[in-house]
């Protein structure tokens, strides 16, 4: 095992290479493109025995991924943001086919206005599709979770495609030390995909795209997907345990950092959660019993583990890097549904929206969120959800709007 500096994109490419992928349907999009560029180079150098096909869109790319996975080969593909949404119809379809493969999504905010920087609205849009979701906080996790993702998705009791999510820029273009596992160790952990009797063969054609009328057969098939996803809760635990045994690194479905005696707990997903981890250490030094709960597995939703990690806490501070327009933070809603009416649920459940379009979250903002939460726990009054946005930022915005106002007037369209 060698430890080297590696970007999140390189870690994703290494995960695919070590998993011995057979097929890569591809379509470029920033900030994901480096992943398929790297795989393309390796294929060209004969370092990776796989076939890559460029498609004209993510819709066709995901169709091809599902079709290839149905034949029993190991498939990898990657996209980001607008691309994930362009292929959205097929996310639901291939999950319904029960075709397992790994799709890496490099999170990036959605238009309009258009941006290159990350938030989680792209991946949240895919949460109801039947794809399982793993959210990474470090480059090491990206590599490790690709291997875990294949083994979980291909499990005979699951058979669902998996999205491994990493944040654009904050992981995709950021180098960190990554332990690169040895190939024999990976082979011992991740055997070749065995589709069993479900393998599609050209000589024995079947139709994957069956039509059903009347709600009952439809309900049956969709709920079987739901049950398979729920079964993945245990499968994930088993696979993560096997991974820890093989490689010595634990990747629990829910990371609980300094939670045992914590009173105020942050709840976050993705790479920004390491900022919360840092804030927890600093808050502890200042005498605040803070902790962090990070769902690594988001689909299936590890409800029981989240309840256990948050039991008896004074307050939970959910920081959503997404916004369900007209409702608020998605993670906050999901956590509320998991905690409502449960014995020992945190006294206060606060919602903050932060990090939209890559907007940074400062250490002082974590400290202040903890202070607001402590006050809410003390008074029993939970403040309304808040967007992390400062007066300074609004002044900057107003400056740009003043320019737009002048332009508007010059164009003869006085507002």
């Amino acid at each position: 095992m060698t430890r080297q500096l590696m970007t999140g994109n390189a870690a994703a490419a290494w995960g695919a290479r070590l998993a011995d992928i057979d097929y890569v349907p591809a379509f470029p999009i920033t900030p994901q493109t480096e992943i398929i560029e790297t795989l393309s180079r390796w294929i060209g150098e004969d370092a990776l025995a796989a076939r890559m096909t460029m498609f004209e869109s993510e819709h066709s790319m995901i169709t091809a991924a599902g079709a290839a996975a149905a034949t029993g080969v190991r498939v990898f593909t990657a996209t980001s943001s607008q691309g994930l949404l362009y292929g959205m119809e097929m996310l639901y379809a291939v999950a319904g086919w029960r075709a397992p493969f790994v799709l890496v999504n490099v999170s990036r905010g959605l238009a309009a206005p258009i941006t290159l920087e990350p938030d989680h609205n792209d991946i949240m849009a895919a949460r109801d599709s039947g794809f399982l979701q793993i959210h990474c906080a470090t480059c090491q996790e990206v590599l490790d979770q690709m291997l875990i993702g294949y083994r979980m998705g291909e499990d005979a009791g699951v058979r669902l495609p998996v999205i491994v999510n990493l944040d654009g820029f904050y992981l995709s273009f950021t180098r960190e030390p990554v332990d690169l596992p040895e190939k024999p160790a990976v082979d011992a952990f991740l055997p070749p995909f065995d589709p069993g009797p479900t393998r599609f063969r050209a000589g024995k054609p079947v139709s994957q795209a069956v039509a059903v009328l009347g709600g009952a057969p439809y309900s049956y098939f969709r709920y079987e997907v739901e049950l398979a996803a729920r079964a993945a809760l245990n499968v994930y635990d088993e696979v993560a345990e096997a991974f820890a045994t093989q490689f010595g690194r634990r990747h629990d479905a829910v990371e609980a950092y300094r939670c045992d005696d914590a009173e105020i707990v942050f709840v976050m997903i993705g790479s920004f959660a390491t900022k919360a981890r840092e804030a927890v250490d600093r808050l502890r030094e200042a005498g605040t019993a803070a902790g962090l709960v990070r769902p690594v597995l988001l689909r299936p939703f590890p409800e029981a583990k989240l309840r256990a990690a948050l039991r008896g806490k004074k307050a939970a501070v959910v920081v959503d890097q997404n916004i369900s327009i007209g409702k608020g933070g998605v993670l906050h809603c999901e956590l509320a549904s998991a905690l409502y009416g449960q014995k020992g649920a945190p006294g206060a459940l606060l919602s903050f929206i932060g990090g939209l379009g890559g907007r940074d979250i400062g250490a002082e903002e974590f400290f202040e969120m903890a202070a607001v939460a402590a006050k809410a726990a003390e008074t029993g009054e939970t403040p309304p959800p808040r967007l992390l946005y400062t007066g300074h930022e609004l002044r900057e915005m107003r400056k740009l709007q003043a320019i737009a106002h002048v332009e508007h007037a010059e164009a003869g369209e006085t507002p």
Partner: protein
Amino acid sequence: MYRIRFHGRGGQGIKTASRILGTAFFLEGYEVQDAPRYGAERRGAPIFAYVRAANDPINERGVITQPDLVVVVDDSLVPVPAAGVLVGLGDESVLLIDSAEPPETWNRRLNVAARVIILPAASAGAEVTQAGAECAGAAARLVGVIARASLEAAVRQELADMPGAVVESTARAALSAFDSMAAEEGVITEGTLASARDYAVPDWIEMPVDDVSLSGPAVHGGATSVQVRTGLWRTMRPVIDYERCRRCNWVCGSFCPDNAISVAEDGRPIIDLDHCKGCMICVAQCPPHAIEAIPEVDAIVAERKEKSA
């Protein structure tokens, strides 16, 4: 934790500089995080990159707002507000500038108390892409915990895909910059961690409800791209030799991806230097080889001389 930010332009090796320094720290046993940040991925556009190094695993992420060291590879960026060179520069920070001007000038000009260290500007005509590596070499000496051999190994590792001659000349440039900073070894010390006891309370606001005429993301002005002087991004300048130019016009003008070459009344092609980004496609395409590429820095020096004469 060491927090170091590099500023420069696309093509000057800024990302490589941050990686050389990051790898050098890593070879010394540090935990490291390095990343470039760019909007327009184009030669000459302002970019920055940052390096964090610490003994413990690094949980901090994102752009460094309180740098211990800011390295400026291209001093023409300092007055460009969008480049953000001075963001978070405190009295304890150090500013390393690749410049022909002395530190006092920069302290006075910028009105900052931060210590300014000058890396003498590369001689005119030197490899532009080595500027970043030189700055990385100098920065490695300033932190004082990186051995010369680790710096050299880092350069070789980061340039492994480059031709041997480039690796050798870049290694020489980085090591010579490292040696030149001997007197300043160790002036950069690790910055402190944030304190949850004593912090500036964020001035969060309630977002105002604005009319859609204001809150829709529209640009109302026409031809705004004309106002953006992308010519500032140029590191090489195309210069037409009108003696050789055959006035065929359409070749250089049609190939110019920025439509920055127009035709004068007398048939001469004219390059709009406010918007030429220096891609050098016209230089490559010109049938009679009448367009020459010269380093922008030389062109500017020549212009200044001409003006003062």
